[in-house]
């Protein structure tokens, strides 16, 4: 009883809480890093150097008036933020933080496919949110979002398949094991796939330069224009949770997950004193930082350019990479 229910439940509770709290701090981190990139201070009022902003912001959002537009589809309008957040949290059930069973909730043999399929459900939140608002800007945004997410999902999945070919397993733990056996991170074996996955990850999470569905300067906020208060906060949480998910997956698939750098070199064995989950979390942080850095640097793509990039550049490269990986796998 304890083994089968209580421990997993506890782990889920810890993980979800950790995730939500880290999302609020991710928002703070984003504001601070953006500020440093732009010659300003960022939040400074609440707590030392604005550190408590991460706590105050959610409180503000919860206490805000929750407005439902008069002609909105009420049920769908309420459902959309939930449908957006739930998949983002569910994905974490198969993200491992170490070999020890303590560090993961479930290891299923189709772990990677599970992640892909559950994240693909997340798009409903955006589409329905846009549609249910009964407003033109969100509708345009949700059309953009659905086209964008489906297109880039194909590229990302194709890319992941080439990693699966390299590792020979769909299990997340199996993939890290394979990297340990190979003695090298897959990022070095599959550099093209790594880059594709990173770009696809930016697009899947609606980050700059692919933030068209929520382009504030074009669509006044995109699909969540009509949302306020807690429902907006749910969208917000989902978005940042997705960023963390994508970073975690990329770190596990390409940067050896919780493995230390150069796992085959014995001379670096002293690095193993650092617990594995710290390795993974720090790798995730590197990705988060790069995401924010990119946001501070790049302008936004236009819809047609985004589609061209997805269909005419990323997908062909992903397919070519897959074919090459397959040939190499057969020959070697």
């Amino acid at each position, binding site marked *: 009883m304890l083994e089968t229910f209580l421990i997993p439940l506890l782990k889920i509770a810890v993980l979800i809480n950790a995730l939500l709290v880290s999302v609020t701090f991710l928002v703070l981190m984003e504001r601070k890093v953006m500020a440093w990139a732009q010659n300003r201070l960022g939040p400074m009022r609440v707590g030392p150097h604005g550190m408590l902003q991460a706590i105050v912001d959610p409180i503000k959002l919860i206490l805000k008036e929750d407005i439902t537009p008069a002609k909105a589809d009420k049920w769908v309008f309420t*459902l959309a933020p939930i449908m957006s957040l739930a998949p983002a949290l569910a994905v974490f059930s198969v993200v491992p933080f170490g070999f020890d069973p303590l560090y993961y909730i479930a290891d299923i043999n189709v772990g990677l496919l599970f992640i892909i399929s559950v994240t*693909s*459900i997340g798009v409903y939140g955006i589409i329905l949110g846009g*549609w249910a608002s009964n407003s033109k800007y969100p509708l345009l945004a949700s059309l953009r979002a*659905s086209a964008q997410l489906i297109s880039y999902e194909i590229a990302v999945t194709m890319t992941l398949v080439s990693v699966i070919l390299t590792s020979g397993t769909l299990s997340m733990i199996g993939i890290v094991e394979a990297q340990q056996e190979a003695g090298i991170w897959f990022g070095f074996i599959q550099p093209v796939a790594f880059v594709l996955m990173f770009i696809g990850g930016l697009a899947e999470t609606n980050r700059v330069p692919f933030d068209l569905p929520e382009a504030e300067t074009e669509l006044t906020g995109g699909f969540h224009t009509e949302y306020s208060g807690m429902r907006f906060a749910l969208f917000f949480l989902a978005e940042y949770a997705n960023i963390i998910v994508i970073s975690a997956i990329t770190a596990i698939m390409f940067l050896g997950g919780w493995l230390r750098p150069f796992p085959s070199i014995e001379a670096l064995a002293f690095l193993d004193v650092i617990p594995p989950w710290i390795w993974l979390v720090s790798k995730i942080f590197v990705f988060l930082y790069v995401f924010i850095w990119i946001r501070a640097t790049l302008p936004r793509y236009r819809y047609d350019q985004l589609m061209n990039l997805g269909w005419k550049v990323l997908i062909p490269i992903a397919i070519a990479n897959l074919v090459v990986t397959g040939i190499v796998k057969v020959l070697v």
Partner: protein
Amino acid sequence: MLEAVVFYTLATFILGLGILVITARTPVHSVLFLVLNFLLVAVLYVTLGAQYVAVIQVLVYAGGVVVLYLFVVMLVSLKRAPEEHGDNRRLGVLGALLGGAVLAELIAIIFASRRNTNTVVNATSDMPARLSDPMLNTEQLGWLLYTEYLIPFELASMLLLVAMIGAIVLAKKNI
């Protein structure tokens, strides 16, 4: 016992949602019920131990196909009465015939598989021994698709390719 309870509960929900899909007034709602339906079917697959099929069900149907349905439904003008969306050139008889044919085929398949349950066993008998572990049903499926069912699999992909090209030709005004 537990399995049966789960199965019948799921089946009830799946059928109920199926009815809601065709009775819902707003097209978007019926698409939503369809998504729920697909998700529950995926759960059904999980209870049957077919995790791979379950995940693919979610990925392809819930995550891909229905998003496109939703896309179309949102674009169709909802200001008009539902009757106006009807087309008087509808070929009702042909539709009924095709539907009947599919139904007959399904029934035939069910009866055929009842009578001849060892087809699958025959196919798996050629499998390498290491794949006999039931946890590895992804590999088993791959093995079957590329050996026993290679030709139907390729035919299906050809059919999809033709459909895809057809859709592009219809949609693009000038290629």
